């Protein structure tokens, strides 16, 4: 390709990357590692150490892990079924899953709030049926539910895509070589779908770990996640330095989880073939 043309084509992306990714990152690192006067300090990072914040961080980790695992367990079988279906039916079902994503995510979470409230829709129905009522609003369970509901499509679609890409003849080859359905799944289908599983996990785990909207609406002010803690630093306390410092700590956790996933991805081939 012509060199001049390249610059013209690449240019906008480079500008975009600089303006909206690199510069904000640098600013967070800067605020996170300095105090109000601009002098270097670790104190913003160490702010994470308070019991209240540690509790929020651990709760966030637990809830987002839980949501990720449940999303995976729900999405994988569904994706497997979808990948075996005729294209028309698949289009219909994936559309049903995607339509909620066209709605504002705040709205979706608000809907759950109305559903789960002490005198919300679900409890009214349960009451009419003379069944015990469900009091999970403002508990971690409600938050987990919201996360699963909100992020399930992000798990489903990458896994479905990965499964869809597997050549049927590769699966047939496994049968042909004597593998039964169970062996074919664990030795061929599952490892080949791994890239989808990895990106699904990342796309659920990361937003779940950093969310503050879901916990705001479904946790009331009773359950604080690390996202809420950071948000408060920016919007209520107005201390950008501490907010940025806490964000950096969270980013380290995300980075570690991604590295683990990558390692696992590389490993999986060897692991499953020696099964």
């Amino acid at each position: 390709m012509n060199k001049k043309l390249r610059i013209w084509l690449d240019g906008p992306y480079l500008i975009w990357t600089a303006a909206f990714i690199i510069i904000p990152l640098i600013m967070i690192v800067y605020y996170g590692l300095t105090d109000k006067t601009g002098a270097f300090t670790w104190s913003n990072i160490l702010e994470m150490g308070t019991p209240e914040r540690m509790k929020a961080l651990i709760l966030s980790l637990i809830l987002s892990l839980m949501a990720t695992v449940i999303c995976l367990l729900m999405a994988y079988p569904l994706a497997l079924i979808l990948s075996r279906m005729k294209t028309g039916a698949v289009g219909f079902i994936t559309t049903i899953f995607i339509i909620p994503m066209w709605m504002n995510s705040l709205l979706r979470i608000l809907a759950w709030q109305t559903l789960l409230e002490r005198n919300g829709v679900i409890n009214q129905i349960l009451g009419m049926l003379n069944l015990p009522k469900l009091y999970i609003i403002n508990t971690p369970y409600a938050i987990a539910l919201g996360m699963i509901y909100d992020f399930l499509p992000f798990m489903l679609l990458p896994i479905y895509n990965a499964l869809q890409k597997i050549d049927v003849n590769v699966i047939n080859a496994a049968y042909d070589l004597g593998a039964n359905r169970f062996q074919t799944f664990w030795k061929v289908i599952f490892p080949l779908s791994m890239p989808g599983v990895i990106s699904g996990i990342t796309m659920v785990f990361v937003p779940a770990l950093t969310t503050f909207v879901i916990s705001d609406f479904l946790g009331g002010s009773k359950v604080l996640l690390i996202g809420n803690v950071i948000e408060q630093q920016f919007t209520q306390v107005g201390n950008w330095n501490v907010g940025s410092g806490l964000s950096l700590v969270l980013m380290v956790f995300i980075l570690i989880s991604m590295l683990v996933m990558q390692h696992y991805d590389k490993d999986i081939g060897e692991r499953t073939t020696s099964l």
Partner: protein
Amino acid sequence: MSNKLIDLQNITKAFDGSIVLDDLNLYIRENEFLTLLGPSGCGKTTTLRILGGFETPDKGRVIFDGRDITSLAPNKRQLNTVFQKYALFSHMTVAENIAFGLRIRKKSEDYIRDKIRYALKLVNLEGFEERTPDSLSGGQQQRIAIARAIVNEPKVLLLDEPLGALDLKLRQDMQYELIRLKNELGITFIYVTHDQEEALTMSDTIVVMNQGYIQQIGTPEDIYNEPQNAFVADFIGDSNIVNATMIHDQLVEIFGVKYACVDTGFGTDKPVDVVIRPEDLELIAVPENEDQSSEEYQKALRKITRINPGYFEGTVSHIIFKGMHYEMEVQAHGFEWLVLSTRMFQVGTKVLMSVDPYNIQIMNKPESEDEKAVSMQEIV
């Protein structure tokens, strides 16, 4: 060659109401190299998938070694498939690919290691154990797919256009490799291709298929020299196929000219199809504007009638040099005859053209579409 190893009986298969295989009958003998040959979409892969167990026929039975395996699962069949696009496991190394079937059958690691080495040697890819499939060329992937299949010591290897994606040179090399491999292993090969040259080179038996029907079964020589119908003649190599009338035994009239031939038993004054291979047409040049009574012309005439009492006069309308020979078109009686010759004739040359009686192939005209496609198992 000995007994029937596989017997396909009355196999019928339809997809969404359209019939893909119609009452197919075919048997395969032990140690045979049998090729299914036919145009795209004629049902070759479907036949192979039925053999492999990936498809169940709507009607009919598959007998393997005297046992009905029509509805036996693929993983329980004593045959292995080399798929149309290799279908290697991309998340495994070459060695793991080859070991797949052996690990499933719980062979010892020592046995597996020996087998991998043996198989890689057989396909000329020693030292490729730790490579991944996507780091291999098409030809190498192909050979790994074959290695992966043969380590399981199948009685039958099914190969679906295994050389389809390779370039000409590599394809020819691989053809020899496959024949060598088959002889070394002493197993039955069922091979699918739509390349007639490949089929003629490699097979013991060729099954020519069209639209789900078997058109002809025979040795490569049979198929080439004695095509049963116009479809086979046309599909196997370039041919001149023309309408003609069988006057009586050993005499056929083509475009009003009576030719001697060797075929008998077609009746009298019967419309037939005639096939003449381009390399069988013989040409003699006559100088232009030459008087028919001239000595020159009479000499040419004597020469051509020694080949066959019947002959055409024509004009060379086109010539291409093809390396080993010239490919020409000769305009005669309103038909463009394809002629292959090592001698060259300028475009515009007037020629006398004839053919040895032995090289005229007479075929019955199909009476209906069904007959056109009739199964010809009996003739083997």
